[in-house]
């Protein structure tokens, strides 16, 4: 069953077409990887789906319900969680408080909200850091914080923007495991990734963007063979 369908989504900033006529679908319980060079429009796509940026054209449907034009808080209430490329933890609050703000969405009782937050913090393997202020955590830990916070709203769909970006190599395997664990728990995931090995490993399908346009969509194997993707993106991997 499809959980999300994006039809002919477009958005321009000035003269630049950040997203140009993008369409795709995501099946429930799968991971969709989004790849593309810098400036391809990946983060804009996330902002359009989650309501942070208004669309010029096109439609976003969540469980066949049109959600285009809704505000971000309404969209998140429907069950779409997200993390941010530029991390946005509540810096002056503890890890536990950060996650509790998320768990309050489904739970009014403060003790239950706290316990649920603790379970999620345990799930992302940060239980010992629960009383640390978010600003004291490392980048990798803050990425986990954002994932935990987004999970706390019990999303059906989770959009993750560069989970492994900006963290040291040692931290990456743990984050990858976490994404797999999340999928197992039944959450559908769309993830933006620059690390091509990771995206090939975890994704069921991959959407490749370049200069705001969809250049390919398919399974990891299909994408690896796609000439346009190789030209615009995969071909540059060795150079970087």
């Amino acid at each position: 069953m499809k959980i999300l369908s994006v039809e002919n989504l477009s958005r321009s900033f000035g003269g630049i077409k950040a997203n140009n006529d993008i369409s795709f679908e995501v099946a429930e319980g799968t991971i969709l990887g989004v790849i593309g060079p810098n400036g391809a429009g990946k983060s804009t796509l996330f902002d359009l789906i989650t309501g942070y940026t208004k669309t010029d054209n096109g439609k976003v449907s969540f469980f066949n319900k049109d959600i285009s034009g809704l505000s971000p808080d309404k969209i998140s209430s429907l069950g779409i969680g997200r993390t941010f490329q530029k991390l946005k933890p509540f810096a002056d609050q503890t890890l536990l408080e950060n996650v509790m703000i998320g768990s309050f969405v489904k739970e009014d009782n403060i003790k239950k909200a706290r316990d649920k937050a603790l379970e999620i913090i345990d799930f992302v393997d940060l239980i010992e850091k629960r009383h640390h202020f978010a600003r004291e955590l490392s980048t990798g830990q803050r990425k986990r914080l954002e994932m935990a916070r987004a999970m706390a709203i019990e999303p059906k769909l989770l959009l993750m923007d560069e989970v492994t970006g900006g963290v040291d190599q040692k931290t990456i395997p743990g984050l990858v495991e976490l994404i797999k664990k999340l999928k197992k728990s039944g959450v559908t995931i769309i993830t933006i990734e620059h690390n091509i090995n990771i995206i090939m490993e975890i994704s069921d399908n991959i959407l490749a963007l370049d200069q705001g346009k969809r250049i390919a969509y398919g399974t990891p194997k299909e994408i690896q063979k796609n000439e346009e993707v190789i030209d615009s993106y995969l071909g540059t991997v060795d150079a970087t």
Partner: protein
Amino acid sequence: MDKLLIAKSEPLWNTDKRIISLIGSLIVLLFALPHFGLNSFYLHLMIMIFMHAVMAQSWNVIAGFSGQISLGHGAFFGIGAYATSFLYVQYGISPWIGIFVGMIISGIAAVLIGIPMLRLSGHYFAIATLLIGISFQIIFQRWEWVGAASGVWVPMTSGDSLLALQFHSSKMPYYYIFLVFFIITFFLVWLLSRSKLGYRLRAVRDDPQAALSLCINVSNYKIIAYVISAMIMAPMGSLFAQYILIIDPDRVFNIEISIIVLLITVLGGIGNVWGPIVGAAILIPISEYSRIYLGGTGGAVDLILYGLILMLICIFRPEGLISFFPKNILERKKQR
């Protein structure tokens, strides 16, 4: 798994018995204080500390909890003052009812101001509220129905009257009334800070974008904070009007009110429930004594002092004086 169980078994709040008994004995001490032969001046000083602590707590809710810097909070103080005095003088309505009317009018005013203004971000909201605070003063200076510039004179009752909230023989009843309001406000704001609403307001303060991703309607929550804040401020205006019995726009809509609540909160510790109390307990005596020793009308010396204190705090203790207290005593946050 063990670690999770340990974490779950932790108490939700700081339940340190020493702190609870310290607060308890402080409250008992405050209730007993007037019986230790405090003269009129000291009673007045304590009343001003209670009043300003509540006013600063009001500002703390909007600025400290939800992150919106209001520079026109004096407006709600003035509304409270006028509501009780005007209703009593014109219609003979007890100031006790007037207090609630003032709270409701302030709340409504906060919604009406908040809906357009809270869409403005950061500095623009601060500037807009500054202008709103000043325009309230100008409107009341010209509004004949409420006495224009000469204000409202509350007729004195022949003796002490609890119903009319007037006490002429001693300041002690005022002391207790302000004290009760102070304790109630403190307790309610403490509850607020630990409630779901409190958590959500801090989310709005720390990162509105992230708050949106957690189903929080940022605009609505800012308005809720503004309304709560206004409704805490108004009763202090009402009680102050009953305390001095003569109000006019220059006094109750004075910009100094909007500034001093900011100073007290920043001095004590913004965003911290205890901050306004510490700030008021330090700044109000400085203000009162500087008025006594450095100039009859207060002049500008106390203002210079305020400026100096604020500069020193911003440079050396941006978290306010409350940060001198060990964190794990007042807050349950622990840095391990």
